[in-house]
């Protein structure tokens, strides 16, 4: 759902620059890298070309492409959207919802995860509740959210919060449990109290694990904020995308999808970046970005 539109934007922007890639020298490390980038670009270009061919020909092979817009139509619609204030209003609205819900979930999730892992009593009180609610997908809470909250706005934030809360809590709890005991012992033999251990060992030590949970949480938060907007919003990219569909504005649907994809990518990249900054002390291990 999110990967599709991203592929399309990339191909249209980077296609021309990278086409010259494979022509570079072979054998050298630089040449091999150029070749690989060339293949990657060609892969995107091929997908975009296939889309263009199928939609321009109004193909109806079992899958029906006749009502889907061509790349040209999408680009034109996108350019048009970028000039309307409504587009930015939607964007802002969705961002506010996701950042509020996600931000609350991050704080609550990290707190709950630490409490449950560090205090047996808190674990006894909270764990059964968490485990009882966790299997319910957040989006299934929409009816409850509508009944519970005075405005749709709050309901959407609630759904987003719930979606992101569980991945953050679970990863925090595991990260606390996986902490080597030697750091806590070191701080305690230097005279540190439980509070010192919390601030100087637990919080910094769990960051690598917590950021894993934040990444997952951001992903599901987007799924839920878009779904919730489609069901009950009056603004927001999710609402606008669904609205475009209902008024037979199919290029508008694709523009909405691309917008959602870009927003999702930007927020994930932001978390990744902050995470890398915060865990620079880790022994260097590449791999997450490739």
């Amino acid at each position: 759902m999110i990967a599709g539109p991203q592929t399309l934007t990339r191909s249209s922007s980077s296609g021309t620059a990278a086409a010259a890639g494979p022509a570079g020298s072979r054998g050298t490390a630089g040449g091999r890298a150029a070749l690989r980038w060339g293949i990657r670009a060609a892969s995107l270009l091929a997908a975009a070309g296939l889309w263009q061919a199928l939609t321009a020909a109004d193909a109806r092979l079992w899958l029906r492409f006749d009502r889907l817009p061509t790349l040209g139509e999408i680009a034109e619609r996108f350019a048009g959207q970028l000039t309307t204030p409504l587009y930015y209003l939607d964007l802002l609205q969705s961002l506010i919802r996701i950042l509020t819900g996600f931000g609350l979930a991050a704080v609550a999730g990290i707190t709950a995860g630490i409490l449950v892992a560090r205090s047996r009593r808190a674990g006894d009180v909270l764990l059964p509740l968490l485990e009882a609610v966790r299997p319910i997908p957040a989006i299934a809470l929409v009816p409850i959210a509508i009944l519970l909250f005075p405005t749709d706005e709050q309901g959407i934030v609630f759904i987003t919060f719930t979606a992101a809360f569980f991945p953050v809590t679970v990863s925090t709890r595991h990260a606390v449990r996986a902490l080597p005991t030697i750091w806590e012992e070191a701080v305690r033999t230097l005279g540190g109290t439980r509070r010192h251990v919390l601030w100087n060992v637990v919080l910094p030590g769990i960051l690598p694990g917590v950021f894993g949970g934040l990444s997952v949480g951001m992903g599901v938060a987007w799924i839920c904020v878009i779904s919730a907007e489609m069901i009950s919003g009056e603004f927001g990219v999710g609402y606008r995308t669904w609205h475009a569909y209902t008024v037979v504005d199919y290029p508008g649907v694709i523009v909405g999808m691309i917008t959602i994809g870009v927003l999702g990518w930007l927020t994930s990249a932001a978390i990744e970046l902050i995470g890398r900054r915060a865990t620079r002390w880790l022994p260097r291990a590449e791999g997450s970005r490739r």
Partner: protein
Amino acid sequence: MTSVAESATGRAEAGSTAAGGAGLAFRLERAGLGYGRDAVLRDVELDVAPGEVLVVVGASGSGKSTLLRALAGLLPPREGRILAGGREVTGPSADRAMVFQDDGLLPWRSVRRNVELPLRIRGVSRGERGRAAREWIEKVGLDGFAGHLPRELSGGMRQRVQLARALVGAPRAVLMDEPFGALDAQTRVGMQRLLLDVLRDTSATVVFVTHDVDEALLLGDRVAVLGRTGVRAVLDVPDGDDARTNLRERILEEL
């Protein structure tokens, strides 16, 4: 075993008159130590005199680290009592700093911030902390590395940082758990020299755990030998090469 408070060494006597907290005395009374249901050590009777360097040697699995963790207050005794400075040990304290074999530094803190940690915990002002940390970083020969993270240092350098961190707060006892065990032979000799050097200026009691008999003879005022059943012998380390060679034989026999 033998009560040895009276055999405290010259360093200890000098220490008791030095400024700052005097060395801490330890006493284990019929202490049983272990994890879960398994007793590692039983009926341990041991006295550590204020200001001395007591080296505990023993084969792996003999409970050296267990003993040290009990002295640190990280492991409550299953039976008997452990006294530090006449008071029963109920938990860790800044009086009893510990140096771990490896990875005892907080990896997200720079060298300087690791060394400052005990002072920070104690609420020492920022300027004071910085000054003390700088002094100790220099003392352990890490000038110019204050801003480095532990992962950017070699094993020997990390142990230097641990040493500085343990001593910067002027603890009354330093408990060292095979601190040089993971180092190569050359680095180890350098570290042993540094340790002797640094300890000359403190009055702290040192309990040092190792499996290396030569290290024990080099560093210790006394050597406690741990066998399967507990403390086998506590021996004074004499001056003079011949006497030391004899003692070495004796320790190897006890092991």
